[in-house]
């Protein structure tokens, strides 16, 4: 009896080892890219401003994440960077990517010719990237797996860094900034920060999200002061308009992980939803003071900021839209 079980078990072990080995070999050696050269496809022509996007094609590792520039409805391939998140302003770009090892993450700070100037090791999954309008600071948010050992394997926390773009050095980590709420010091174990947006007029000032105890606060901070203060609740992934007067953000629906895009006027505190009715998990980009661009991780869409109109498909098979001002676009050539 026992020896019969032993034989069956030995048989199962052999089958499992062979099966697993064969599948890994098939996955490692098989064709890893599709033959179709699917690449982002411009669906609408933007007057005045160009955008940078990353290609979305998860089944095709050779193409997925490659950076393209869309100019007057034409799609140009831009260098060899492959990014999970990309941002660019005033000659300085951030590309958050999977490292060459395939199991690690890194951020490449790149210049106007898409050449890598600095490489920064990341400690988690790329989530958000931004560069201040003057190109001085970059901001990156990563997801960190809480504790994959000894239990609680799917809890997440975020870390948000500010990088000095010229040197590639860290200029601050939001988790270490002092926070105040209603003038009082504010701290809790579950503090998570994400989604920095820089003041277009003063790159030292920024807005971001502070998540704690089920709240998602809009915070305003200073990099030189290493401090932040809580402004209001219910604002995630803020994005300042080019004139600095409005904030586009994600508004959580109940306690779910579903969001509506809304726009907040900083002067009047008037707040309204935009015409996109689907749940969007992205940090919105402003193409100009009236138009938002965002992705659903498959395509890039635009929608008027004032709540009117309809979402319009801008670039198919793309995400991470970046507005390129005329000056930036020229410097990229």
């Amino acid at each position: 009896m026992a020896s019969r079980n032993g034989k069956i078990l030995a048989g199962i072990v052999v089958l499992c080892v062979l099966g697993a080995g064969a599948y890994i070999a098939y996955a490692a050696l098989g064709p890893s890219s599709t033959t179709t050269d699917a690449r982002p496809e411009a669906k609408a022509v933007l007057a005045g401003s160009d955008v940078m996007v990353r290609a979305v094609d998860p089944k095709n590792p050779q193409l997925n994440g490659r950076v393209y520039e869309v100019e007057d409805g034409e799609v140009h391939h831009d260098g060899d960077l492959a990014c999970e998140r990309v941002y660019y302003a005033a000659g300085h770009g951030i590309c958050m990517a999977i490292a060459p090892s395939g199991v690690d993450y890194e951020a490449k700070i790149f210049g106007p010719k898409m050449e890598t100037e600095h490489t920064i090791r990341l400690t988690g999954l790329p989530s958000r990237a931004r560069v201040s309008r003057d190109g001085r600071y970059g901001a990156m948010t990563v997801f960190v797996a809480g504790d994959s050992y000894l239990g609680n394997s799917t809890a997440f926390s975020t870390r948000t860094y500010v990088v000095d773009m010229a040197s590639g050095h860290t200029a601050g980590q939001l988790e270490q900034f002092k926070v105040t709420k209603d003038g009082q010091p504010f701290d809790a174990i579950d503090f998570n920060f994400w989604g920095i947006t820089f003041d277009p007029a003063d790159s030292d000032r920024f807005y971001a999200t502070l998540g704690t105890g089920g709240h998602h606060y809009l915070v305003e901070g200073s990099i030189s002061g290493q401090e932040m203060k809580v402004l209001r609740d219910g604002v995630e992934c803020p994005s300042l308009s080019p004139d600095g007067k409005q904030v586009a953000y994600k508004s959580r629906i109940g306690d779910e992980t579903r969001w509506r895009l809304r726009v907040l006027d900083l002067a009047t505190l008037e707040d309204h939803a935009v015409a996109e009715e689907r749940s969007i998990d992205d940090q919105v980009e402003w193409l100009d003071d009236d138009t938002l661009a965002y992705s659903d991780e498959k395509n890039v869409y635009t929608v008027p900021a004032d709540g009117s109109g309809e979402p319009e498909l801008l670039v198919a098979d793309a995400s991470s839209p970046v507005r390129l001002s005329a000056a930036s676009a020229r410097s990229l050539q």
Partner: protein
Amino acid sequence: MYQVEASKALLKPKLWARRSARLNVPRNVVMLGMVSMLTDVSSEMVATILPLYLVFSLGASPLALGAIDGTYRGAAALVQVISGFAADRWRRPKQVAEAGYGISAVGKVALVAAGNTIGGIGAIVAFDRIGKGIRTAPRDALISLSSSKAGLATAFGVHRAMDSAGAMLGPLIAFGILLAAPARFDAVFVVSTFFAVLGLAVLVLAVQGRPKRAPRVDDGTPPPSLRAALGLARDRRVAVLLLAAAVLSLTSVSDAMLYVGLQRKIDFEPAVFPLLYVITAVAFMGLAIPVGQLADRVGRVPVLLCGYALLFVVYGALLMSSLGYGLLVLCLLGLGGYFAATEGVFAAIAGAILPEELQASGLGMLTTVTSIGNLVSSVAFGALWLALGLRGAVLVFAVALALAIAAAVPLLLRSQRAPVHG
């Protein structure tokens, strides 16, 4: 102590023989350890890459998964008590454990087949949690019933060491596969399924369902009733043990929170963060067996209390004004020692005093009390941190833990008294 031997050649094999004789672990326990190891390799492979997969292939936020996981964790705690009683009632701990491991294995197959929607992944994570809840109590009962009462802590130590070895190997194997086949998450899911199937096969084919201490089925005694299982809590020795488990777990902060505290304290590079788990897990893995042996030799209660004393020392380190890297590593080794001296040893203490026919019910109650206690303490610690700051929260918990240890001493000693007969 030893007579000096003339020849070293003579001495060596003897010493080796002594050592292996001392680590006298029943085959069934090693096999159950193997089952847990293979299953943990399978689960941790998926857990490691799931965020990567969610974000890059499905374009979802990993936060979505965290929310799902939290919801089902509470449910899993309750499932433990029910499955423990079911195992005793039907007198089939092995079959109930098989159901638990089977559910997780089916979940892995489902991941291969239907893992391309967020809802599907959520359901599979829930499945895995429930499977874990079902299998824990009957599996611990099998470990306990397979061992002699004198070797219980060693047996649980061997099991916990193999279990955490699986949790360490899983991520390495997943990364290895992705290194060989970039972005082929399906390969990770497929290999994970094979590991889950292997674990289940070892359980079904190599684990004895009726180990030596298992109650006889054919002697005509009726299976234990629900009343008898609930009556466990009224048994003086079990009641004081559960009470001790409650006060100790209520004052124990989860390791995840301690890591955050340590990071705030030292401001070390976030890149170091994953290393904290690794160092603690390696220490836990390395110490689980020797500490279990020590507990069997010098007494389980003192070793258990030493474990909580180690946690108290780690709290103390968090109260120091400054902390260097050397002390950080010592803290992590201390945490590993704390896990080694408490995780399996508590189960061993319970296994020794629980009646054979109610082992799974009693062990299920113990894990439920402990996990609810840990959940409450985590929430309380978070709230105290918000109200008093890190230092204040740690101070409150240090005082509470000291009081809990003081309260646990008489409770645990009473649990060790011989039962009143007649």
